[in-house]
């Protein structure tokens, strides 16, 4: 007697095998070499590499501004997703498709055009600089670039969820005398929260890793507007491979922890909807 379970859909072993091989070759092995290479450094030099003042400053810039930029995206992306999925207006299709532009545009192109727009003589920068807003070669510039690249993640995550909302639920709220605002805040928003967290997490992950668009607009001043990916590149240019991988390690661990927290939040917000006693 064979006790092998019969599956209704064929191909489980084959697809699982392909999936695991793929993940191992493309994700797991490359990531593990980071740890392996940096481990050659010895504990003391490792610590020195990852805690030098310049590197610490770059962590603050990268994580701090990624956090703010994806928060901004969560807010405006939510509004954009809401408008695009709830209303039909002239040019709807056009606006819907330009949401994807930050996905498709080579990041260097994005960086160059953003710099051109927001620098002191740029179309937008010329109005911001007199107000004391240094919109290029500053932290604000990094913030603009990271907001730009993260935007589609929030919109594209929320859109299908908003479209799938049951309109009857809103009508039920309205028929019970709730105002539009109350219906939104008490009924609609809680059901969109998990998707919002997912969109936020994706935008945040993208922002942490962003390099191409940022280096053009940030000015790359050590200790002030230098992002961690740039610090890594600088180490590499000086043939300090082990230091580069050490910093990469730290980024990896911090990113992983942050995504873990966001996932937990998302899980929790799903649970609100269907908690067990």
């Amino acid at each position, binding site marked *: 007697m064979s006790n092998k379970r019969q599956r209704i859909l064929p191909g489980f072993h084959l697809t699982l095998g392909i999936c695991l091989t793929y993940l191992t070759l493309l994700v797991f092995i490359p990531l593990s070499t980071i740890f392996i290479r940096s481990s050659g450094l010895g504990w003391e030099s490792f610590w020195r590499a990852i805690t030098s003042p310049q590197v610490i400053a770059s962590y603050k810039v990268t994580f701090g501004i990624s956090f703010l930029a994806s928060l901004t995206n969560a807010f405006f992306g939510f509004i954009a997703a809401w408008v695009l999925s709830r209303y039909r207006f002239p040019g709807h299709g056009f606006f819907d498709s330009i949401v994807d532009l930050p996905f498709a545009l080579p990041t260097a192109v994005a960086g160059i055009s953003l710099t051109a727009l927001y620098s002191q003589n740029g179309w937008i920068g010329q109005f911001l600089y007199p107000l004391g807003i240094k919109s290029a070669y500053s932290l604000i510039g990094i913030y603009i670039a990271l907001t730009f690249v993260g935007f589609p993640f929030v919109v594209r995550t929320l859109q299908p969820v908003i479209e799938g909302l*049951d309109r*009857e*639920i809103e*009508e*039920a*709220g*309205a*028929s*019970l*005398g*709730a*105002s539009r605002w*109350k219906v939104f805040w*008490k*009924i609609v928003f*809680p*059901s969109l929260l998990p998707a919002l967290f997912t969109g936020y997490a994706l935008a945040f992950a993208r922002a942490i890793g962003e390099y191409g668009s940022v280096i053009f607009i940030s000015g790359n001043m050590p200790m002030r507007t230098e992002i961690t990916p740039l610090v890594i590149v600088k180490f590499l240019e000086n043939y300090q491979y082990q230091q580069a991988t050490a910093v990469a390690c730290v980024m990896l661990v911090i990113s992983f922890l942050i995504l873990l927290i966001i996932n937990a939040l998302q899980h929790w917000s799903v649970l*609100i*909807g*269907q*908690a*067990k*006693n």
Partner: protein
Amino acid sequence: MSIQAYNVYKTFGSYKALKGVNLDIPEGKLVSLLGPSGSGKTTLLRILAGLEFPDENKNTQIIFHGEDVTYIPAGKRRIGFVFQHYALFRNMTVAENIAFGLSCKPKRERPSSEEIRYKVNQLIELVQLEGLNNRYPSELSGGQQQRVALARALAVNPRVLLLDEPFGALDAKVRKELRRWLRKFQEDIKITTVFVTHDQEEALELADVVIILNKGEIVQIGSPQEVYDSPASPFVIEFLGNVNKLKGGLNNIPNVIRNTGILYVRPHDVDIQLQVESETDYVLPAIVRHIFSAGNYGRVALESLPQREPFEAEISRNRLRDLDLKPGLKVFVVFRHVRLFENDSVYREIKI
């Protein structure tokens, strides 16, 4: 509270969902809007609720207890609406769902949280969901969710209760139970109630008044007995229960003058005899095709002679046993109650 609606029209794009509906619902009645899908019954209910508004027309009026509410939105009409798929708030517990309407009231009208809690418990008891206060909708069965939706709608002391296909998504047994429960419940609290259904059995069993719609128009209003016994049109007779339709009109029946109408006879008004027992005008020779002996009644499929039009008879099981019918046997049928429709409404009713 009474409801009147006059000249209600509704178009969606080029589709005319309602073509001038007039109705008058007396206070405290349980009324059903009955019709096939696409008849406009749900649209009419939603317009009564204020979830949808009728087309602009100076003659259109919807009146609740003497007050014109035609363009007043649902939230201000003091109605309770129960949605077909319940539309419970999934992120809230049973108690929170029921309390929602009360906690949304403006500050000066809002009861204190103790009063809300008391009211919620009262309603939970009323709909027999004791002990489920802190459950989430996803943890309840369909019938329980239905009752939460009802309690939630009742929490705001509505003047009218409107239900859209209230039992549509439930299985047959639960549906029957809940139907009886709703009937008793409505009798107890005496709230004017309108429900939409496409199930004629449900409408006839539950309602005091049945409003039958077809293609955006009301075709008949009456008590269940009235609409069943005196259908106003071929549509109504075909829609309410089983009926045999014999296109030959009275040509089927020898000795009756030729007639061009269509003859309708309910299966339970057809009797089968082996010999002609009495010489009446409504005896027709027929041939037995098939016998269904399972069920509450014996059903016999027959074909008229000589036109060979198929029809059905419903006779008691005892009678069926006594007759000892076999397929192919030639018999005589007696139509005890026939209706003859000409065009769409003019008809002759013949009872013997």
